[in-house]
């Protein structure tokens, strides 16, 4: 059955349509793989019974020729997505054994299109982290290892479970969310493809909120085509989310293989950091060369406010988070640690329920919104955000179709290696946060390996709602770089 898990989503779709195998067989193959890969800690909740029931139901539909675009495809769901009758915790102790009575818009669209849920995937607590080490269920292990080393590496975060599970062939694709890089950075760390769509492209309804103005869901998959297939089912307007965009969802898959000839690709000089590893520099030049070879035109561009993006992000995101997380108070659901007064109950519950990184961000956010500090921090950060957005607008106004950058400043690092200094951890997002601040789409595509054999990714940043161009360009890189699959050790 191992061969079934190694199929791409597109290949499996064909096999199911041809009746080469059933969804139940495909699902069982993945459930077996999940069971055998518990060392990775990618899943925090396996739902084999539901998975088989969904697979059987969809097999019946396929037999009648009624399957949807994702009919029979087994997926993993980040634990940030509310799933009806299935525990949803955002990997925080404070949600305890919370079981929603509702289904997030995105997952309900996936089930509508025939997908099968294998279970819930690990993530950084409330999506706050870049290594998946802040989860209350413990860290996720990257299926990749350095050549000749047994050191366990992080898969990146916050969608570490999603990236690890997709890379390790535990699911054909996974939902993920990205607030500052949480789809693209783990995709780059695991040799998978991850796209953060334009803000408003996907509904946020039913996704546990981290920072509302930055959060956006997207898929992690093994190929650019697979991510395009998933995007089509995930995207769409939702009247329950007023920030979602009321515009038609294109057939993203049709963009795969489309010529990129004559497209202008911006190479932003501000992304060339001092002390950037040579191999990242090399990867970037290679990527540019591949696009050029495919007929694209490379242009130097400037995004002058890039250096302010990370500090501004670490004001805006915690500010919104401090307010979004106020609802976890022990009164209505989740963990409650009693006290002698309501104030004490709040303090006890939140002190015990939130992990250190979440507490740190709640405190930062509370501080920057406080009377007397609001103007100096939050308001200024919002102004910086406007300037960052304008940088991109100016660039696109000059005819640039997409911007090419490295996805991360390094390859995956060891578990526990970067715990001491939070700022060192935050620097992981240096190439990705600007995209969230500007609300743009960004895709991370694996493009090569570092000297120790770990995958590295490149990022393409697109115009608002032009995910299609990113899929076209992403596939050019994929074709040139090949695919990256970790050797199985677990």
């Amino acid at each position, binding site marked *: 059955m191992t061969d079934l898990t190694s199929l791409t989503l597109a290949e499996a779709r064909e096999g199911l349509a041809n009746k080469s195998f059933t969804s139940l067989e495909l699902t069982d193959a993945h459930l077996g793989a999940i069971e055998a890969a518990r060392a990775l800690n990618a899943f925090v909740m396996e739902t084999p019974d539901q998975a088989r029931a969904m697979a059987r139901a969809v097999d019946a539909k396929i037999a009648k020729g009624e399957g949807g675009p994702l009919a029979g495809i087994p997926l993993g769901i980040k634990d940030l*997505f*509310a799933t009806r009758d299935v525990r*949803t915790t*955002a990997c925080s102790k404070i*949600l305890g054994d*919370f079981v*929603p*009575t*509702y289904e*997030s818009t995105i997952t309900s669209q996936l089930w509508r299109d025939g997908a099968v849920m294998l279970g819930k995937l690990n993530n950084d607590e409330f999506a706050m982290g870049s290594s998946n080490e802040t989860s209350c269920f413990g860290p996720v292990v990257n299926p990749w290892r350095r050549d000749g080393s047994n050191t366990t590496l992080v898969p990146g975060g916050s969608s570490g479970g999603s990236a690890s599970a997709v890379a390790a062939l535990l699911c054909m694709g996974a939902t993920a969310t990205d607030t500052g890089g949480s789809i693209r950075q783990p995709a780059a760390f695991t040799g998978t493809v991850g796209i953060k769509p334009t803000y408003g492209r996907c509904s*946020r*309804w*039913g*996704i*546990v*909120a981290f*920072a*509302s*103005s930055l959060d956006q869901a997207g898929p992690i998959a093994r190929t650019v085509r697979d991510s395009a297939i998933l995007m089509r089912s995930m995207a769409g307007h939702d*009247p*329950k*989310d*007023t*920030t979602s965009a009321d515009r038609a969802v294109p057939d993203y898959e049709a963009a795969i293989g489309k010529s990129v000839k004559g497209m202008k690709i911006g190479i932003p000089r501000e992304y060339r950091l001092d002390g950037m590893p040579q191999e990242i520099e090399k990867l970037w030049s290679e990527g540019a060369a591949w696009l050029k070879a495919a007929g694209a035109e490379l242009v130097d561009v400037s995004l002058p406010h890039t250096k302010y993006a990370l500090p501004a992000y670490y004001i805006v995101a915690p*500010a*919104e988070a*401090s*307010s979004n*997380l*106020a*609802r976890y*108070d022990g*009164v*209505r*659901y989740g963990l409650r640690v009693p006290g002698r007064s*309501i*104030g004490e109950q*709040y303090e006890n519950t939140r002190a015990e329920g939130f992990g250190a990184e979440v507490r740190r961000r709640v405190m930062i956010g*509370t501080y920057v*919104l*406080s*009377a007397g500090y*609001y103007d100096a921090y*939050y308001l200024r950060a919002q102004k910086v955000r406007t300037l960052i957005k304008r940088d991109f607008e100016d660039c696109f106004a000059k005819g640039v179709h997409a911007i090419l950058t490295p996805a991360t400043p390094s390859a995956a690092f060891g578990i526990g290696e970067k715990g001491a200094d939070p700022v060192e951890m935050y620097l992981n997002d240096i190439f990705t946060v600007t995209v969230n601040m500007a609300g743009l789409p960004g895709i991370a595509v694996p493009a090569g390996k570092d000297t120790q054999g770990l995958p590295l990714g490149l990022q393409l940043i697109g115009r608002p709602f032009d995910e299609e161009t990113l899929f076209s360009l992403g596939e050019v890189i994929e074709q040139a770089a090949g695919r990256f699959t970790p050797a199985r050790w677990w």
Partner: protein
Amino acid sequence: MSAASGKLIKGATGDWETVIGLEVHAQVTSNSKLFSGASTEFGGEPNSHVSLVDAAMPGMLPVINEECVRQAVRTGLGLNAKINLRSVFDRKNYFYPDSPQGYQISQYLSPVVGEGEVVLELDGGKTATVGIERLHLEQDAGKLLHDRSPNLSYVDLNRCGVALMEIVSKPEIRDAEQAKAYVTKLRSILRYLGTCDGDMEKGSLRADVNVSVRRAGTTELGTRCEIKNMNSISFMGDAIEYEARRQIEIIEDGGSIDQETRLYDPGKGETRSMRSKEEAHDYRYFPDPDLLPLEFSEAYVAEIKAGLPELPDQKKARFIADFGLSPYDASVLVAERESADFYETVLAGLADKARDGKLAANWVINELFGRLNKEGRDITGSPVSAEQLSAIVDLIGEGTISGKIAKDLFEIVWTEGGDPRALVESRGMKQVTDLGANEKEVDEIIAANPDKVAQARAKPQLAGWFVGQVMKSSGGKANPQAVNDLLKSKLGI
């Protein structure tokens, strides 16, 4: 705009002026809540009108209820206020179990409605204008139930998320009477507009009252105290009087006022401290990232404006101009929408509105309201319908019955019901306008009272005595005007 002067308070060291500003919270009349589809119905089982959004379940998002926005714009227009075509919802962050989100969605820097004004009706027919600072939309909180368990509090979220309009006045109110007149007028406008039912007992309308004092003749504002959650107009008046005197005493004793929030205890008739400025929350307002700014066009506002009903001030002016009502009577009629509607229905039923409009007003105010008050009923439960009252007024106006008979007729209609015109026929209450019949009586009375005749010739006003005598002997059925005319010609005056 300058405030009308108010009643000064005599202190030990001189006269003091009270400065009052009000924040009125008015529950928006709407079927569902401000950001969720849950019902706004009053009095359901605890937690029976709660959506996932109201309970702040993980991943839930607010969606603006456009009807509530419409109501706020209607209200703004009714207050002659500036409508802001772009406004922003902010989060007001604080922890309390009645606020499941951990923040209230409100409007802080950019409210939906800007400056406007309310004209107050004061004693003696005087008016005063109070400026409106702003009106914004916000969520109501839930309710804590402390009496169900000795050591636990329960939470009822039925009200949580219901739309409120916070209407903030300028500090242009100068005494308790003006404050009461302000809330009364505001409530009347809201009820005319149908944007708030104004039911203070159910908490649909409540006021936070900011009170400070200063020496008469000075212009600087003193330190204010805020009296929270007044849901009775008369208690609010008492609270203001008490609070002003409390502050004057402190200052005259050499003390100073601490800015604080206070509560009024109607049982003891006093205010007491709830929390001081130091304990005040830092609400950490910031724009709610889940909601887009609220934007609408001039055309949208114009369309709402075109659909506004006639408001009390306009109605009052029309009653005065068209029917010659006194400003006082007109004010009484327009104060409540139901009264005004009743009067308008009476008018509509009259054969000659121009002639009898004022007479109809007298009948509504004196006979009908008087009787309703006496029996503790309100206009909606009046046993005499507007149509019946129109008929009674018509009968007087056309001279079929006298005012005195009309009172008897009113009594019959009140207790027994029936068509007034038919009653007049069937019970022989018709006024005798047959001059021949009256002439005989007039002649007799003139003949029997030569001394009065002499007096009346010297002083024509005294002829009224003869009219009274004729009316008495006719059992009230004579037409007093006709009798008067006849007398004048007989007496040659």
